[in-house]
């Protein structure tokens, strides 16, 4: 519920974009100034104060429980509001407009607000919980809102007073607010004028960030209110609105806060959504405040909105905000400087608040304190907290930036919020269309009929009923499927179901597999397919009676009837050539050319294999792995080895006929490790010796794959090739490549050729490999260009993985390589896999992204599919969906297990359908969306100029947001940037995608790197893309040495780094440890074992093992991170002001990048401009 609400709230966010020129909400200048806003504000002010102090506090307090959530929410909301909504919302006018409604609504919203806040926070995390509640309100508010609106309107003013209104009312009110007088007024508040928003946003952002953290704590304590306050403050700056908001929150949280109303005003729009169930509860006590509070928070999230308040504030209360701003601004100000210029006066003020927020944020802890002061705190807090400096700073800062980075939506905040809200309880999959917690949240899943989000995540859990809606929204409908995902030990693996000789029970027409959604009829004698509605006879052996509810009596005994994920044992009909498959084989193919030998790689691999072979994947409880192994070495020619157990010595067989590759032996090539142990050991001992003196520098490549393929063909099994390769294959052989690296092509129409394979030879080879179930994993050790784009073709199309270790050096890269190799060899993998995604009538899987091959339009074929590989599937409408029946997905994966068992893994997922766009926006998952967009864009570069791809991305996102703004957000001035709560991070993430090396290469990035990354991303899951595009930045020096937890992440911006601290940044591929120049010597000594900053070697690939708590803590953090990722990350020590820092800065994705990538703030402005263009 909260979610929905929040989502709504989000829209309002339109932040006053004072700072943004483009964004500038003319409104700000104008609006705020205009009497209206002011008046509104005034009104608000009036009410707010009143509210704040009187109502909020008390009422709110009661709701504490909620408030607590609310408060955090509120914080979030603020932030979020700022962020989400945007910039644009700043508009005072709207706010102004809003304010009143807000006020009016605020009360109602108050409840809502709470809920929203809660939702907001929760929402991100927990859409499901209140869902029903929320939705209604949401929907109501906006659309139907009209009805409520009136109420709200009427109430608005009164609201403050009447806060107690029922939740629904509240919601309605909220809606009303937004819609009605609202419309304009309400939304704005949510959005906050851009100007304000900006200013606000930062605040909000800061808040959110801090808030999240804070909130949680607050929640416990009343603290939240303060947060709210703090938010309020930011908002407040927007003078009144802010205050009101804060008040609202405050109220919720802090009884004392009158402001809540204001918040309501702000939040209203946002709040409404929030109104979800939760609110009601909260509401009751402090309904008004709650609502109000909720409102703000909600607004914040979406809106980033802090703007709303600002908007409101900005408009009417410019001055006050300013003051308020001043207090908090300081920190923020600096960044804002530029904005300031842009910002209107009001903005400036707004910023002020933001800075304040910033201050507040830092103060997060402050929040705790803040809570106390809540009502006044808003303003006071800022002052009190950051005030001194902040106040001073703000003015200065203003000139620099228009927008306070802290005021714009913060990924960190969102993640933290979700984590705290949704991480504690298991995610139960029983309900249709629930949005799961974020990928960054640790949560348990209880399968009650839908596949775990670990297996499937969707961009939206609420699908538009019609294609028109879908087109209008431009929100891609996609599912990111990881069929063999690894589950945490607490969760059970899919059960294996055996339906006997006739195989799994399936629908006669569409061949869908038996699943929980199948409807049994006629006493259980038949079942109706949930996908195609065809009625199929239940096979006699499968018959079971139905109980009075129409459920089969054996419902709980059969995984395929009660669970979302399960496996079927496949019958021989599902096997190639109608023969059960043999156990798969692993073939290790080692480059033994000069480079590989000289670098020690060959010896390393051989040494490692000796022990690694004992850890081949095993099925279940089997004593030993069924997988057979084989060995090949190669340079210009290939060497096969006969390691038959009966031999005293291995035998080497050289195949020099690389033009026409074949396998020289069958018996003795693929062997059982245990049986041939001594021979294999002897071989691995001898390989490095044999080639120790090699002078061969040329290598072949395609024949190596062909050899593996032929070997598997001959052995009639599927399997995996592990190829360790060092150089561009220039030796005379099929698949020979030439060096075509040309950086001059970048930014030209020919740039795409850099991503395309040189020759179609490898595509054909890949096809053959897939047909045989020959998966190719590639380990590359290049010292120069080796054309990853071409070499990777087979790997990519067979579902394999590429690992690249440029300039491989034994000392530094050994650990990384060995860890990758170990994991790669040991990880669970299905062979010879075919995946098909079935959907209920109305939508259809139309496009697929990932590492696989498709010979037709429906079947995704993968020679190998491991537990880390993800397939993204896009759906399109081909008919109407109905809200009643929702939409169903069934992903069926047919594969051969590592023991050679043929199985079908089935994942089912049910989604809701909606006729209201708002529902769609409320149930989105930005991370998944980004995953899809990145993959879409990365595929696009193969065929279009990069610029086209970038523009298309921006355009699509602008359309998504514009559609929201137009159809879901409460009316507000055009200048307000209003983001949906669920998508408030879309701009920041999108910017990260646009700045990624593939789409905007830095100077240091090689063509191979780009191709490599392009392929990597294509099969990443949501968690991986999340951290890849927005790296995790952890202040190590802030880590609590005594606890297991990670320090709170901070945003990826240089200005967040302190010279006195050490930070860790990880993106899934690399870990950077950044050391500030002013770091205490003691820390350096503890961590690096050297006495001074200058003595730190940046050649370290691991941290020294030192016996002190800090070192242990840091190493344990790194180990923890390494475990989370599917690849072992390269550790790079970066000293501030060192050369390497350039590289590091590349990953500070919120900043302007050297290669021309926009900073977050700039990009947000740009997006806003785009959206406005679309709207106008």
């Amino acid at each position, binding site marked *: 519920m909260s979610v929905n609400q929040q989502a709504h709230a989000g829209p309002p966010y339109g932040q006053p974009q004072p700072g943004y020129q483009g964004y500038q909400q003319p409104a700000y200048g104008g609006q705020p100034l205009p009497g209206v806003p002011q008046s509104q504000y005034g009104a608000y002010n009036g009410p707010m104060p009143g509210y704040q102090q009187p109502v909020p506090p008390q009422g709110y307090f009661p709701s504490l429980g909620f408030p607590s959530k609310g408060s955090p929410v509120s914080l979030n909301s603020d932030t979020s509001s700022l962020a989400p909504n945007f910039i644009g919302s700043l508009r005072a006018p709207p706010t102004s407009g809003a304010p009143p409604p807000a006020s009016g609504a605020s009360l109602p919203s108050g409840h809502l607000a709470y809920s929203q806040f809660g939702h907001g926070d929760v929402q991100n995390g927990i859409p499901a919980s209140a869902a029903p509640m929320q939705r209604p309100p949401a929907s109501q508010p906006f659309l139907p809102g009209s009805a409520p609106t009136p109420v709200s309107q009427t109430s608005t003013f009164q609201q403050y007073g009447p806060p107690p209104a029922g939740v629904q009312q509240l919601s309605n009110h909220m809606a009303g607010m937004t819609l009605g007088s609202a419309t304009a007024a309400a939304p704005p508040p949510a959005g906050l004028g851009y100007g304000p928003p900006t200013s606000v946003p930062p605040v909000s952002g800061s808040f959110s960030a801090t808030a999240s953290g804070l909130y949680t704590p607050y929640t416990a304590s009343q603290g939240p209110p303060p947060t709210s306050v703090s938010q309020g403050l930011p908002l407040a700056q927007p003078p009144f609105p802010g205050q009101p908001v804060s008040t609202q929150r405050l109220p919720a949280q802090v009884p004392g806060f009158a402001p809540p109303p204001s918040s309501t005003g702000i939040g209203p729009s946002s709040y409404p959504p929030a109104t979800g169930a939760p609110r009601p509860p909260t509401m009751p006590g402090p309904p008004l405040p709650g609502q109000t509070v909720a409102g703000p928070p909600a607004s914040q999230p979406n809106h980033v909105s802090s703007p709303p308040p600002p908007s409101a504030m900005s408009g009417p209360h410019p001055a006050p905000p300013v003051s308020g701003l001043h207090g908090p601004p300081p920190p923020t100000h600096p960044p804002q400087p530029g904005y300031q210029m842009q910002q209107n006066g009001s903005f400036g003020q707004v910023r002020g608040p933001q800075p304040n927020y910033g201050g507040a944020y830092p103060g997060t802890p402050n929040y705790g304190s803040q809570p106390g002061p809540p009502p006044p705190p808003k303003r006071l807090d800022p002052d009190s907290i950051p005030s001194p400096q902040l106040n001073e700073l703000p003015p200065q800062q203003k000139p620099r930036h228009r927008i306070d980075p802290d005021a714009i939506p913060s990924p960190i905040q969102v993640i933290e919020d979700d984590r705290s809200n949704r991480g504690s309880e298991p995610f139960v999959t029983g309900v249709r269309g629930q949005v799961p917690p974020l990928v960054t949240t640790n949560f348990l899943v209880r399968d009650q009929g839908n596949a775990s989000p670990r297996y499937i995540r969707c961009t939206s859990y609420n699908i538009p009923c019609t294609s028109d809606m879908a087109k209008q929204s431009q929100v891609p409908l996609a599912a990111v499927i990881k069929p063999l995902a690894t589950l945490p030990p607490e969760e059970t693996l899919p059960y294996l179901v055996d339906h006997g000789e006739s195989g799994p029970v399936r629908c006669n027409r569409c061949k869908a597999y038996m699943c929980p959604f199948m409807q049994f009829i006629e006493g259980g004698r038949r079942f109706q397919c949930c996908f195609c509605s065809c009625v199929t006879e239940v096979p006699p052996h499968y018959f079971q009676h139905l109980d009075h509810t129409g459920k089969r009596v054996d419902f709980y005994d059969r995984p395929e009837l009660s669970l979302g994920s399960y496996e079927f044992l496949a019958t021989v009909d599902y096997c190639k050539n109608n023969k059960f498959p043999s156990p798969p084989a692993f073939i290790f193919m080692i480059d033994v050319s000069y480079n590989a030998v000289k670098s020690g790689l060959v010896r390393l691999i051989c040494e490692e294999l000796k022990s690694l072979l004992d850890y081949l994947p095993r099925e279940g409880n089997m004593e030993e792995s069924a997988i057979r192994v084989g060995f090949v070495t190669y340079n210009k020619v290939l060497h096969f080895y006969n390691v038959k157990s009966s031999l005293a010595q291995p035998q080497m067989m050289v195949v*020099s006929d690389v033009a026409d590759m074949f396998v020289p032996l069958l018996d003795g090539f693929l062997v059982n490790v245990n049986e041939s142990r001594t021979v294999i050991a002897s071989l691995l001992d001898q390989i490095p010796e*044999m080639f120790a003196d090699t002078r061969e520098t040329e290598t072949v490549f395609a024949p190596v794959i062909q050899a593996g393929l032929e070997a598997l063909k001959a052995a009639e099994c599927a399997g995996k090739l592990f190829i360790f390769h060092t150089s561009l294959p220039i030796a005379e052989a099929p698949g020979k490549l030439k060096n075509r690296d040309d950086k001059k092509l970048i930014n030209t129409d020919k740039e795409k050729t850099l991503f395309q394979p040189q020759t179609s030879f490898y595509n054909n080879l890949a096809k053959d490999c897939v047909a045989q179930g020959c998966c190719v994993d590639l380990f590359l050790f290049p010292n120069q260009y080796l054309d990853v784009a071409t070499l990777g073709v087979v790997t990519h199309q067979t579902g394999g993985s590429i690992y690249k270790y440029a300039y491989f050096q034994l000392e530094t890269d050994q650990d990384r390589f060995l860890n990758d190799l170990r994991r790669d060899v040991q990880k669970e993998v299905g062979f010879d896999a075919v995946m098909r995604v079935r959907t209920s009538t109305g939508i259809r899987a139309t496009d697929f992204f990932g590492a696989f091959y498709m010979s037709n339009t429906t079947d995704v074929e993968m020679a190998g599919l491991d537990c880390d590989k993800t397939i993204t599937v896009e759906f399109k409408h081909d008919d109407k969906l109905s809200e009643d029946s929702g939409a169903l997905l069934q992903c069926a994966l047919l594969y051969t297990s590592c023991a050679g068992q043929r199985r079908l893994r089935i994942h089912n997922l049910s989604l809701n359908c909606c006729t209201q766009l708002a529902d769609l926006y409320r149930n989105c998952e930005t991370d998944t969306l980004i995953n899809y967009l990145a993959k879409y864009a990365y595929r696009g570069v193969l065929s279009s100029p990069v610029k086209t791809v970038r523009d298309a991305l921006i355009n699509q996102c602008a359309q998504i947001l514009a559609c929201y703004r137009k159809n879901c957000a409460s009316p507000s001035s055009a200048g307000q940037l209003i983001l949906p709560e669920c998508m408030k991070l879309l701009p920041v993430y999108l910017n990260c995608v646009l700045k990624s090396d593939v789409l905007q290469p830095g100077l240091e990035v090689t063509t191979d790197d780009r191709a490599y990354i392009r392929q990597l991303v294509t099969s990443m899951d949501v968690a991986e893309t999340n951290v890849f595009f927005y790296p995790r930045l952890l202040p190590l020096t802030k880590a609590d040495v005594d606890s297991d937890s990670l320090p709170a992440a901070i945003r990826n911006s240089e200005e967040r780094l302190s010279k006195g601290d050490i930070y860790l940044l990880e993106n899934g591929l690399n870990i950077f440890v950044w050391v500030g120049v002013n770091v205490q010597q003691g820390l350096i000594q503890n961590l690096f074992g050297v006495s001074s900053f200058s003595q730190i070697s940046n050649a370290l690939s691991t941290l020294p093992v030192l016996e002190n708590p800090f070192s242990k803590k840091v190493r344990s953090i790194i180990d923890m991170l390494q475990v989370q990722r599917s690849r072992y990350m390269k550790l790079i020590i970066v000293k501030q002001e060192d050369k390497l820092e350039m590289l590091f800065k590349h990953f500070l994705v919120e900043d302007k990048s050297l290669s021309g990538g926009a900073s977050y703030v700039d990009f947000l402005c740009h997006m806003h401009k785009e959206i406005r263009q679309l709207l106008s």
Partner: protein
Amino acid sequence: MATYLEFIQQNEERDGVRFSWNVWPSSRLEATRMVVPLACLLTPLKERLDLPPVQYEPVLCSRPTCKAVLNPLCQVDYRAKLWACNFCFQRNQFPPAYAGISEVNQPAELMPQFSTIEYIVQRGPQTPLIFLYVIDTCLEEEDLQALKESLQMSLSLLPADALVGLITFGRMVQVHELSCEGISKSYVFRGTKDLTAKQIQDMLGLSKPAAPIQQGRPLQAPEQPVISSRFLQPVHTIDMNLTDLLGELQRDPWPVTQGKRPLRSTGVALSIAVGLLEGTFPNTGARIMLFTGGPPTQGPGMVVGDELKTPIRSWHDIEKDNARFMKKATKHYETLANRTAANGHCIDIYACALDQTGLLEMKCCANLTGGHMVMGDSFNTSLFKQTFQRVFNKGFNGEFRMAFGASLDVKTSRELKIAGAIGPCVSLNAKGPCVSENELGIGGTSQWKICSLDPSTTLAIYFEVVNQHNAPVPQGGRGAVQFVTQYQHSSTQKRIRVTTIARNWADAQSQLQHIEAAFDQEAAAVLMARLGVYRAESEEGPDVLRWLDRQLIRLCQKFGQYNKDDPNSFRLSESFSLYPQFMFHLRRSPFLQVFNNSPDESSYYRHHFARQDLTQSLIMIQPILYAYSFHGPPEPVLLDSSSILPDRILLMDTFFQIVIYLGETIAQWQKAGYQDMPEYENFKHLLQAPLDDAQEILQTRFPMPRYIHTEHGGSQARFLLSKVNPSQTHNNLYAWGQESGAPILTDDVSLQVFMDHLKKLAVSSAS
């Protein structure tokens, strides 16, 4: 005629030469009327105990087109230190080393008894002999084991410094690298793909590395031996290694499904062997020894598909043009054989299988390079084991009975031209004034290459008399022929053996009786047989038979004494008396009759027929039959069914088979166990006598004959029954059969019938 017989024998012993005519008709016209061409059987390396080689270079005629070697027939002017070439009449100065020459101080080559002389010359680097084993691994376990043992044993028989190499094949072809320690290494080739020599060398890493990189010090010289030595190593250094490697040889590991033949890449294996040697040791004595246990079933040179339901081609298929792979395969092997010959290497084929192994297609490999061809039922038989062992037999002087890379250069005096040669050789395409336009056998050249030969290797060389009838040779004139054989001795020395012979010319009209008397009917039979067999390779069997018949009839017409149209008056002189009989048996021989023989067997028989010396050839044409009985000492008896008597033990030697046949009574006696009773010890001796004689033959013959011990009514008796002249058959048993004997169930004509017809035709005025 005793004189001529002695003369012929003497000549054969001294020079290894037997001419069909020992007095030559002096004009082309007369010569053609002689029917049997002027030709000789030459055994270039005939073992001569009394011929110590001389250690200097031969003196050559200075005329570039002649280059004949100084010989006893040359006129020498001792004072002027000049000698006149007896072929081109060029006057040559003796080289300075001959300054001391005088009538009493003659060099050996001028002495009449040295009409054959052998020089040892120092030319080029001496490279050790090379033995490259090419082993089929698609064998039954038992066979493979036996083969492995034979091969391991053979290592001890090789010269210590010989280089050995190992290639194994089945579905794939593996070239084993013998130099490495520890891990055994081999290069593998796919069995279905034909590769050029260049590709093979590239793939084996034999192509010379791009040396220019290292300027200054030419490392090439030391490198080259290193490279080749990876695959070819001196026996003494890798003896142990190779023994182990052979011991570890596995059967071809690729599964053979029911109803299929194993995939055998003989064609590619040979091709790689050839390519390997071609790249590393061209023009050095080398033996590629192919051991195969079945037909090639894939790749170039495949002879039959791998479906067992399709049998390997038979003569019937070939006649019906139904042998799908034959032509292509033959072409493949011919190409290989020619390349091998060009490199001076030879290919031996040891094929042991119950079914055919594709010898028909592969025969040229052995035929053109002088390699051995051995056919057996299994590697696990003494036939193979002993034959293989005998390859490495040593001669009386402790030297291997093998020589390599020989080139035979024939020079003739002007009245003669060279029409061709038939034997294990290839043409070197040396055109010259003494080369005839009419080809008999491999013609159009005066030089042939014999890549491998042993002391019994015999070539048939055909000449044409070109002297015109109107330009008679002066009375007492002699024609001369010089055979110059340069070869690599098994000791790796280069040697040149020069044989110069001369025969009298005679005017056929006035001196026919001389010519007639000097007819060597044995040599003539063999020479004609070689021609016939040679033709049979390319012509239809019946055509060859007709041709032979016609030749025989014409000969009889020419030299017989008869009244026209009166068969009964027909007589042949003693020097021709056996000739028709030889022809009779030749017609029935497996060389010309394919009935009851598989194409492989025919190829096998013909292979040996084309290289054995006169004696052995005659045995092949007309097997020898000895009878052992209580009636007297062992005696040769007619190869006739009438010789098969109950109280006789017969010993038949067909060259390929030794058959001991116990007559009905003897067999009964033996069954009764008389030989074990002391009082019948003579019976025991009687039984033992043929065994001993057979043993003697078995000891010396190469390849070892199939040894058959049978008795009256035994199934193996067919070997005897199919050979003897069917004078008594079920048709004429009562007409002829007053005397006892064994009737043969055949419709073949008997010698008597044959002779009757011959007489009738010879005297007929119609033809």
